[in-house]
């Protein structure tokens, strides 16, 4: 079983400067196509739901998750991961209906649904006779 990436992204690795300018963790993401929408599952445990930013601008989706600090000042015996904010952005190839994007945070996972724009949905064209 492969492991979650929990790697701090520098500005150059993520290819885009986050407005906050700090390094942040890169969350693991699944992207699926389900019917007429793209759905993203973003691992973001311990986030403050009201402080999660999801921005969609000219085909670029940016996600910033602010994390509730925890374990501060603890005397660690085992310290396998760090706790900090998450940031990741994607260039989305499909045409998305930006006004209909929705996001939900549950059990530490941010689910973002990006419905495809109406114009690109396949349509059956009925053929008249005569």
């Amino acid at each position: 079983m492969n492991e979650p990436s929990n790697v701090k992204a520098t500005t150059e690795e993520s290819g885009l400067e986050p407005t906050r300018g700090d390094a942040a963790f890169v969350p693991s993401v699944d992207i699926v196509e389900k019917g007429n929408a793209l759905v993203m599952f973003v691992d973001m445990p311990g986030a403050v739901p009201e402080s999660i930013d999801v921005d969609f601008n000219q085909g670029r989706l940016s996600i910033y998750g602010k994390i509730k600090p925890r374990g501060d000042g603890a005397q660690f015996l085992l310290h396998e991961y760090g706790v900090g904010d998450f940031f990741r952005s994607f260039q989305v190839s499909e045409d998305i209906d930006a006004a209909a994007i929705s996001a939900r945070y549950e059990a530490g996972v941010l689910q973002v649904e990006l419905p495809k724009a109406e114009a690109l949905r396949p349509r059956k064209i009925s053929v008249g006779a005569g």
Partner: protein
Amino acid sequence: MRRVSPFRQFRSEMDRVLSDVWAMGSNLATRAFPALNVWETDGEMWAEAELPGVKQEDLDIDVVGNELTIRGQRTAPTDEKMTFHRQERTTGSFRRTVRLPVEVDADNVSATLRDGVLTIRLPKSERAKPRKVQVSVG
């Protein structure tokens, strides 16, 4: 506008692909899932793991002596009607055991799972708690 070196991007993509390959099915992986943080206070040991998307009913926590075991599974968000464009999140079953350096009171261990963070509180047994020693001047 910052220019990103295509070589650096390529290398970081390759690093990511290769690290996934090494980790897959490898018993020698230097990092296991889930990653754990363990710390102590005078009266307690604490263990914490990040388990986003894992349901409470799919999680088992056992304490035997001073060994803590976390077992569980995470199911993929699959559905026959879905096609994956990208799949990075681990799925399947996992198991980690940690031997704690002090004796804990197994009957009074408690755990909470909130927003994908599992926090386990393990009170130290009375014997294991630090004692102040009075120094008498003689």
